[in-house]
């Protein structure tokens, strides 16, 4: 079923991979890899704690520091540090399942399927509703998040309805669609230029280095590394923003 990306799969596989036994396919395999990679990274980093970090411990510590300083402290504040494990594992899981987009032999971003981004977004949805209910109480949470201060009485019902839809539907949907559509778009662009390169190679082998296909393919591959990091970052930072807005209402 063409698991390794050694030849081009049929175009229909772009949106619909064939499934093996128990519905297990390549995308599910990538998710298993991402889970194990996240687990192994932190277990190795935590097994031998050294005062001066080296190797994997260095990577894990600096990335946890990154999540702490540039995600949590910028959005929730010091009292959001309890969410560091959730946000750090979420960041790494998304990053590992995105980065397979440019790994030779795999070349498939697992988040280009809608399932797991939707599940992650629904998980975030549950977390910020529960946090809001616990920290502010159900009525205060609903009032604080649907009635923005300083709105004229006349348009208040409309604004309250929109804000309620925002926390009920729009937030998880847009968060899931953002991750999914970015990865699918990047994958489609890479596929387009790779197909072009392959067609030129089949025509005359030396035509493959024509700049518009080949140079753009190399450049876009580098760009997709940035995108897969950035999408993991944005998903995590939006999670932090939503949790923060449940903890501290706007005054």
């Amino acid at each position, binding site marked *: 079923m063409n698991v390794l990306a050694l030849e081009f799969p049929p175009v229909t596989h772009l*949106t619909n991979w064939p499934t093996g036994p128990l519905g297990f396919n390549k995308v599910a395999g990538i998710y298993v890899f991402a889970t194990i990679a996240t687990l192994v990274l932190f277990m190795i980093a935590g097994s031998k704690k050294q005062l001066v970090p080296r190797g994997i411990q260095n990577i894990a510590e600096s990335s946890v520091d990154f999540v702490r300083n*540039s995600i949590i402290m910028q959005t929730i504040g010091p009292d959001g540090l309890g969410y560091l494990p959730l946000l750090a594992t979420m960041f790494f899981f998304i990053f590992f399942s995105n980065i397979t987009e440019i790994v030779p032999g795999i070349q498939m971003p697992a988040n280009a399927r809608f399932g797991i981004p939707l599940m992650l977004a629904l998980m975030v949805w549950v977390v910020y509703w529960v946090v809001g209910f616990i920290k502010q109480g159900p009525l205060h949470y609903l009032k604080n998040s649907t009635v923005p201060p300083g709105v004229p009485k006349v348009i208040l019902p409309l604004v309250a309805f929109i804000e309620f839809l925002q926390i009920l539907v729009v937030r998880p949907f*847009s968060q899931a*669609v953002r991750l999914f559509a970015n990865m*699918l*778009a990047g994958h489609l662009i890479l596929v387009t230029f790779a197909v072009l390169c392959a067609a030129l190679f089949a025509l005359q082998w030396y035509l493959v280095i024509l700049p518009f296909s080949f140079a753009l393919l190399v450049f876009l591959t580098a760009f997709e590394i940035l995108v897969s990091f950035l999408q993991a970052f944005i998903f995590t*930072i939006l999670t932090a923003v939503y949790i923060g807005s449940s903890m501290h209402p706007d005054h």
Partner: protein
Amino acid sequence: MSMLHLIAAQDPGELQKGLTAVGRGIVYGGAAIGPGIGIGIVVGNAITAMARQPESAGMVRTTMFLGIAFTEALALFGFVLAFIISG
């Protein structure tokens, strides 16, 4: 219009496929206009802010990514909708 009638008389399925493709293009192209302008405004103002106060660059960058993410969502809805449309 007579050209379309001619094609439709010969092969209606082909005309439908072609018009679906045109519709997809219009949907995504239309959805990309507003967010393109919006992201330009967001990033441009963030650069201005960073140039004026380099010491607050970290905070501005975080907020800039948030603004980009919210603005970009509309374009991505258009992208997904273009896939959903089928002839």
